[in-house]
Structure formats: C-alpha cells, structure tokens
C-alpha cells in the first residue's frame, strides 16, 4: 500500500516543497510525478500478480477514509501517472523563460495528486474531496495568466459550471450512504431499487458537468485560457477525465434506465460537440470541443453496458489528446503565442517532427488501424451495436466517429497547407521529449488493451466484421472529406450555431447566472425592507406616543385621555430607550432583573 500511496504522496510532497522552497520548481514537480509514476507502475505490476491493497485512514466519525487498489483503480492510477509525468516534462520546456513557475508547478502537482486520490479513493467522502480539489486546481490553472482580460472570468465559469453539476455527486453520495449505511464505495454499489436510479442519475449529472457533456460543455471551450500543458493534463487525465472515471467506477450501481440516459446524453454530446469542433477558428478550442465529443463516446459506451470499452477509450484518448495538445503548444510557441488557426497555417511544414507526432495522435484519435484509437473505437461501436438501445446508440456512435475524422482532417489540413513561416521554439528539447513518448503511446497502446481486459477480468465486447468495417469506413470517409472540403462549407446552415457551441437561450449565463443575480438583487432590496419593518416594531412605541399627543390635543373625553397618558409615558420611555443613553438603560435592565430575583426569592421562601 505504501508504494501505491506514493502515487499521491509524490506530487503532493512536490507541491508542498515547491511552496516552501520557492525554487527549482520544475525539477521538484518532475521528480514528484516521477515518484508517482514509479509507484503506479510498480503497483500495477503487483496487482497484475494478484495483489490487492486497502488502507483505512481517520476521517469523519463512522466514515473513515479509504484507499483501495484493485485492477481498475491500478490501471487508472497508471494512466494518470503516465500522462502527468510526461506533461510535466513537457511543461519544463514550455515554461522556459516565463514567470510564475512556483505557482504553476505547485498547482500542477496538486492537480495530479488530487486526481490520483480520486482514482484510488475507496470511500465516497475522499472521492468527493478529491473531485472538488480537482475543480479548485483547475480554477487556479485556467486562471494562471490572471492579469489578462477574460482569464479570470473563464476560470470562474469553469468552476461554477462544474460545481453546479457537482451537486449531483453530493446528493448521490448522501442517497447512497443513507441507503446502505456506509460510505465505502464498493459496499454502496449494490444499493439497487429506487435509490440506485436516483443516485445513478445524480452521478450522471455530476459526470456530465465534469466531462463537459451537452448541455454543460460551454465551459470547456472557454477554459482554453489556461496554459497549454494545463489543457493537456486537464483534458486527458484529470478534470474532464474525472467524469468518465466516476461512471466507470460506479458502473455496477447503474440500473438500465440510467444507462440509456447516459448513452443518449453521451451520443448527443458526441454529435453536438463534434459539429462544434468543425466550426472553431482556434486550434485549442477545436481540440477542446473534440474532447467533449470523445468523452461523449465514452459515456455512450457506459450506456451501452460496456465500461471496459469506455476505459479503453479513456486510455487511448488520454495518450492521443495529450499529444495533440502538446503539439499544439509547440505550434503556439512557433506562432508567437497564437492558437488562431489562421496564424497557424503551414506551421506543420516548418516543424515536421512535431507535425508527425500530431498526425500520429490525430489518426489514432480517428481510429485508423493499427493505432490505439482503432481498438477502443471498435470496442465502443461493438458495444453500441450489441446494446438493447442499439437503434439509437449505434447511429450516434458512427456519427461521432465520422465527425472525429472530419475535424481531425480539417486541423491537419490547416496546419499543413499555406506558407511556412514560423519562428524557433525555446525549450523544444523538453517539449519534444514529452510529446514523443505520449505520441508513441497513442500509436502502440492498442496492443496493451487486451492485457487490461484480462487484468480486469472483463472481456471487451465481441466485435463482428460488419461493425468493424462500418467503423473504419466512417473514420476514413470523415478523414477524406475533411481533408478535401473546408469545414465551414461542410457545415452549411449549421455553421453559426456550431461556432457558438449550440448555446441556447444565452447558455449558462442567460439561463442560470443572470436570473440568480437578479433574484439576489431583489432579495437584497427585500432585506432592507425586512430591516425597516423589524426595526420599525421597536419604534412603534414612539409612533404611539406622537399619535396620542395629537389625540390628546384634540381634547377627547377623560377615559381616553387617561389611556393616552399611559401610552404617552410608555412612548416616552421607549424614546429614552432609543436616546443612546444605554448605560442608564442597562442599569434599569439590571435593576429589573434584580427585582425579579427578589420577587422570586420572596415567593420561594414564602412558600
């Protein structure tokens, strides 16, 4: 267990050391994730040999924190460790000559540590904690260039979107713990009944928020305000991946109704954000939309009843998407910091080796054999055809595959064509090293997938020749069309909405944020009214006094006059109460209290 714990402790210690020492931040961060990587790989080997670990730590009363190492969590931990280590290596080059290294590398390390905690958490409290800390770290990283206009708002949106959806996780956990009386993840997954449906739907909501599924996908495109290594990590192995990880881990809980909803939601996302990717004018935004669409396919796989297919695609996507982002980061440096596709035209020609890695990763994502994505996409297609809801899931999966081909080809075309004029890139050595390994992984990871399936003891879905052929045709047609025809023309009337990411009714801002703010302002006004009323009650005495004086002056009859006199003296006393002479009033109160005590004393003794 100690070795498995290193996956968390390595980056966590790095984050703390960086904050304390405030120097050699890059080296510490690489070392931290290196320790994490070593721990994760060693653990994976041991788990493959049949070992299982569990640790119980003090937490809340009757709800201890747990870490669990079993095949699934070990595989996930290895994935996170690999990506975070190589992204960190890349980041050393990326940040060459830039400021804010202490902040950047400490938060990146925290980010990695939190994600490792999420994947090996064995109880819901720790899982939720990690889930939220990941959101916090991404807020800080997306807002890294906090002085630039719009960056702060992008970070705010990312956190608020995901936190709104996080409510689903909170309530789901409450439902599960209430139902089963324990916070241990594995023990709650057998809940069943209405609780399982409710908790399942709530978990789905949370996963959709984190994994940027329609209608929550808007924040991910804005999150591109962060530095490129952040995007690489966030899209492949941390923040966005957390949603898919949650559903894969909670799969045994999910009843058929929830599965159908998850599948359809994922499929629609693949479609909607695939179109969005086709219309983007910025390389990083294109990749971001693509991320949402690929996670859509993973949800679809879960919905089709095959978490293994989803896990395959999670692994393949992690390698490919991190490579694509790292490549994009090099291009960005070459184009003086711009990721606008217009500025990047022909940049691939100038940096051929980086472009090669980009192409390999891109084709792997599309699913060209024998690259990794081919195997994972095949598994998803096979699962979707075998699912009871095949009539809807299979077409959506095919459409997602087609769209992937289209937008990847479009990106490649734009980066390759045009005039080559690009500057040199500082820190290319580190960046190239990180990129090369991840690109090699995207090419070859497919071979390891059967081993993963063996380890989990869950076979990948049976694929038929027909399904494999359909998938391949969809991918290749997409690639060919995308290379030949500009994306904007393909979209036709859909161009406008695609470019805006199909935001309806003003999106989150229009539907949630602005109404909430108006409600808040209205309540604030109301609150001032409440104060006036409550305070007014205290002044009622004064009002009564002045009213009585008027009545008195008009000369009413004696009985009323006597009443009024009483009221006036009351009012006068009330006025004195508000005169600010609190010392005297306090004395009166004390005297009153004493009087009561004396009364009591007499009463008690008398009795």
């Amino acid at each position, binding site marked *: 267990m100690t070795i498995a714990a290193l996956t968390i402790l390595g980056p966590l210690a790095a984050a703390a050391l960086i904050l304390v020492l405030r120097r050699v931040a890059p080296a510490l961060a690489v070392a931290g994730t290196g320790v994490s990587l070593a721990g994760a790989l060693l653990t994976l080997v041991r788990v493959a040999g049949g070992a299982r670990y569990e640790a119980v730590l*003090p*937490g*809340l*009363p*009757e709800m201890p924190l747990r870490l669990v190492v079993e095949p699934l969590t070990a595989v996930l931990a290895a994935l996170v460790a690999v990506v975070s280590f190589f992204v960190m290596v890349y980041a050393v080059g990326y940040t060459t000559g830039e400021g804010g290294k202490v902040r950047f590398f400490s938060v990146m390390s925290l980010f990695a540590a939190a994600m490792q905690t999420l994947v090996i958490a064995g109880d819901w*409290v720790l899982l*939720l*904690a*990690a889930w*939220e*800390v990941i959101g*916090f770290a991404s*807020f800080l990283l997306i*807002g890294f260039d*906090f*002085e630039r*206009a719009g*960056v*702060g*708002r992008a*970070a*705010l949106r990312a956190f*608020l979107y995901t*936190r*709104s959806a996080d*409510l689903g996780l*909170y*309530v789901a*956990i*409450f*439902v599960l*713990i*209430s139902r089963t009386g324990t916070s241990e993840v594995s023990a709650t997954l057998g809940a069943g009944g209405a609780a399982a449906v409710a908790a399942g739907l709530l978990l789905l909501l949370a996963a959709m928020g984190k994994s940027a599924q329609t209608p929550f996908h808007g924040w991910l495109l804005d999150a591109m305000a962060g530095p490129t290594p952040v995007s690489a990590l966030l899209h492949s192995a941390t923040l966005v991946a957390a949603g898919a990880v949650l559903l894969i881990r909670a799969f045994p809980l999910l009843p058929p109704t929830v599965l159908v909803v998850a599948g359809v939601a994922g499929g629609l996302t693949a479609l909607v954000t695939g179109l969005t990717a086709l219309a983007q004018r910025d390389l990083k935004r294109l990749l971001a939309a693509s991320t949402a669409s690929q996670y859509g396919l993973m949800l679809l796989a879960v919905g089709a009843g095959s978490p293994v297919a989803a896990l395959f695609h999670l692994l393949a996507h992690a390698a490919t998407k991190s490579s694509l982002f790292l490549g994009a980061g090099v291009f960005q440096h070459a184009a003086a910091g711009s990721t606008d596709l217009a500025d990047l035209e022909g940049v691939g020609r100038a940096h051929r080796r980086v472009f090669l890695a980009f192409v390999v990763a891109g084709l792997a994502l599309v699913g060209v054999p024998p690259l990794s994505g081919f195997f994972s996409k095949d598994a998803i297609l096979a699962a979707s055809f075998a699912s009871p809801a095949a009539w809807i899931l299979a077409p959506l999966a095919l459409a997602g595959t087609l769209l992937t081909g289209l937008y990847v080809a479009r990106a490649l075309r734009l980066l390759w064509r045009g005039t080559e004029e690009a500057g040199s890139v500082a820190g290319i050595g580190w960046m190239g090293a990180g990129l090369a390994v991840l690109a090699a992984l995207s090419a070859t990871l497919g071979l390891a997938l059967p081993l993963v399936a063996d380890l989990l003891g869950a076979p990948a879905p049976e694929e038929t020749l027909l399904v494999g052929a359909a998938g391949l045709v969809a991918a290749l047609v997409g690639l060919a069309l995308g290379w030949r025809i500009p994306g904007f023309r393909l979209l036709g009337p859909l161009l406008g909405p695609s470019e805006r990411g199909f935001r309806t009714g003003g999106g989150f801002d229009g539907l949630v*944020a602005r109404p*909430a*703010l108006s409600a*808040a*302002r209205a*309540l*604030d006004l109301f*609150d001032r009214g*409440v*104060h006036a*009323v*409550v*305070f007014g009650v*205290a002044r009622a005495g004064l009002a009564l006094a002045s009213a009585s004086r008027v009545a008195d002056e008009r000369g009413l009859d004696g009985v009323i006059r006597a009443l009024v006199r009483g009221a006036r003296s009351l009012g006068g006393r009330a006025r004195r*109460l*508000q005169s*600010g002479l*609190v010392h005297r*009033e306090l004395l009166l*109160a004390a005297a009153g*209290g004493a009087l*009561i*005590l004396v009364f*009591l*004393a007499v009463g*008690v*003794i008398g009795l």
Partner: protein
Amino acid sequence: MFPVVSVTLFLPLLGALVLVFLPGLSARAAHLVGLVAAGLTLVASGVVWARGALGGGFSQVEEVPWIPSLGVAYRVGVDGISLPLVLLTTVLFFVALVFSLEITERARSYVALFLLLETASIGVFVALDAIVFYVFFEVTLVGMYFIIADWGYEGRQRAALTFFIYTLLGSLPLLLAILGLYLASQPNTFDMREYIADPPLTGLAAMLALVAMLVTFFVKTPVFPVHTWLPLAHTEAPTAGSVILAGVLLKMGTYGLVRFALQMTPDAFRAAAPYVAILAVFSALYGAFVALAQTDLKRLVAYTSVNHMGYVVLGVAVAAATTDASVAALALDGAVLQMVSHGVVTGVLFLLVGALQDRAHTREMGAFGGLLRAAPVLGWGFILAAFASLGLPALAHFPAEFQIFLGTLRVYPAGVLVVLGIVVTAGLYLRAIVTVFLGELPERWKGTKDLDARELLSIGPLLALTVLIGVAPFLVLGVVHETTRAMGLL
C-alpha cells in the same frame, strides 16, 4: 484538582482589572498586558482541552455555592460541545488582540473591553448555571456595544444601538424561559445539568419556553427575519470587533440552541423541528442569495454568516427531529464543527477585508482589481479563505457541511435543497476574487502594500487552523462525537 476552567474564565478579567487600576499605562504597555492575559488564557484553555471531556455529561466541573436558597451557584464545566468553542474563543481573542496592536486611541480601554468580553464569552460556554449563563450572555452585549460605538466606523452609533436594542430585547424571552425551568424543577434550582438530565417542563409550558428560547437564540445566531442587525453591526464595527462578533458571539446563539432548546426541551423541539428546519433552510439560502447581491466586501462576508449559521441551525433541528441516535450524532457533530469552522474562516475573512480597508479606505468590490499582483500574500490568503468558506474539501467547512447535509437528507429528504447554497456561495466568492484580485492592476493600487508582520501573525494561525480542521477534522470531532453519541443514548 486545579480549577483550570475557572482560571481560563477569569484570567482575561484579571488583565482587564490591571488595566483599569493602572490608569497611567501607555498604549504599548496596555497592549502588552492584553497580549499576556489573552496568551495565558489561550494556554489555560489548551490545558482544559488536553484534560478533555469524557462521555455524555460534563467534565472538569467546578462548583461554588452562591445563593443557596435560590439554587443559584457558580457552576462551570465543559463537555464535547462547549470545549471546542472555548478553545475557538481563546484563539480568536488572542488573534484579534494581535491584529489590534495598531490601535492607539484609548488603547487601555479598548484592550480592557476586549478582555472583559473574553471572560464573558468563555463564561457563556462554560456556565452550568442558568443565571450565570444569563449574566455572561448579557455582559457580552455590553462589551460589544462599546467596542462598536467607540471604535467603529462612520455610522457606528446607529449600528451599535441597533445591535443593542435587537439583542437586549431578544434576550429577555430567554430569561422568562429560564424562570419557567426554575419554577418547574423539583427542587427549584438553576443548575443546568438538572434541566438536561431531567427536563422539567412538559406540554404547553415546554413549547412556550422553547419558543422563548428560539426567539433569543435566533436573534443572536442570526436567523431570518431577525438577522438585519448583523450586516449593519459588522460594517461599522472595527475589524477585531467583527472577528469576535462573527467568530464568537454568533456561536452563542447556536450553542444556546443546543444547550437549552435541544437539551432542556427535547420533546417540544422535536415537535417544532420541521418548522425550525424549514426556517433554517430558507435562512441559509436567503443569506447566500442576499450575499450574492452585495458589493461591499464586509456586508458580503456578513451575509455569508447568515448562510453558514443557517446550516448550523438546520443541523440542530435535524438532531432534534430524529429518533435515530446515530443520525442525531451525525447532524450535531456537523453543527458543532460548523460553528468552529465558521469562527476560524470568517475570522480570517474579516481580518483580510479589514487589512484591505486599512489600505484602500473602501470596501467596494468594484473599486479594486488585479490586487493579487500588488499584494500576493493578502490575495492568496483571501482566495484560500474564500474557498474554505464556499466549502472546498481539505478546508474547514467541508466536513461540517457534509455531515449536516447528510443528516438532513436522512431526516428531511426535501431539505437537501439547501445544498444549492454551496453553488451560490461559490458564485459570490469567485466573483469577489475575480473582481478584487484578478485582472490588470490599476494605476491607483500600484503601491498597495502586502500584509505586514502584525497582520501575518494574526491571519497566519487562523489560515493554518483552516487547513488543519479540513484535513484532520477528527481532531475536533473526536471530542465532539464522544458527547453527541452519549447524548443520543439518553
């Protein structure tokens, strides 16, 4: 056994007396006396903490007869609920006095008042005699009144008066309830332990007493609609006063809710629990939304107190309603931890806003921008505290809110609506962070200084506690749970 509780209780008063009887003292010497007194008190409370509280009843009880014929006696002691609050009190007072070192205007009276207030505050939490409790409860009022009225900002007179009238009128019903308990107890006594062991009131009388207590404690906590004194008092109070007001005085409301309403009229509270829970949910959400509309940072933090204290009230209501001892313990654990967390976190937030106001002479969010560049320590402190306040795990509020929400779902499933509050608070704090600290630094704030040693010494320990409670909540919950579990078995 050495009476540590009484020593903790009266050490600050001793310091105050020293100040009163040495009129020629310079400001520096006065502050020194204050720091020594508050520091020794902190140490003494540490000893009380180390001795701990065992089981369901009260520990470390010290008793001296006072008015035997009336059953009034000086009785003090602690259990798992009051113990963390005593420690919270001594920490916050020490920190507040450190932050106040810059005060030179009538420093002697200022420090003496704080020390008087400290004794009264500790007294409220350790009193085991209803009359002693009431006396301390009222004295805190006087101390805070003068602190706001004499060292506050522009509108201080009106704010102080509002505070005073509100809470003075608010506390009278409690006196009636105490008298009711006294008359019903056999033999007549003001010993709170008797009321708890064998609740003397039943039926309508118990319900009336409960309503009276609720009025008093709701004003103090505060709960909608009697919360409006809070933003006013906070904005006008000096920074250290705000820290004590939010960190310690508000806790007296919820502490009273547990100690009196829950423990002395349990059956009536069970009957009333649904209404209290509804009010608490409403109050929590209302506080969050109104805070969202604020542009004055101090008012913003003040309204989030309404939100956070609403969770505490909800936790107590849930504990009152359930017949399942483990759920009751869960909700109460959350409520008590939330009191501690709120004291620490809101303390930091008020200190930071105060530090900001000392520099900029404004608290309007819109006036700022990009301050993280000019004052990084201040900025990061605020970001950390704000995220703690919006319930980020590994920081103080999360474990408390988690327990309260979980307990709520188990007893009142619909009440779980209250989790919406954590999104609203996230929204308002992020907005404050983005507006004040992110973006480009305007020319006007270029020379803004970062936190100095005095500010760091007061803010740093509280930030450390915020992380400690978040990472290791069991340090506090261990002692709390021991008591709440035993309470549930009664």
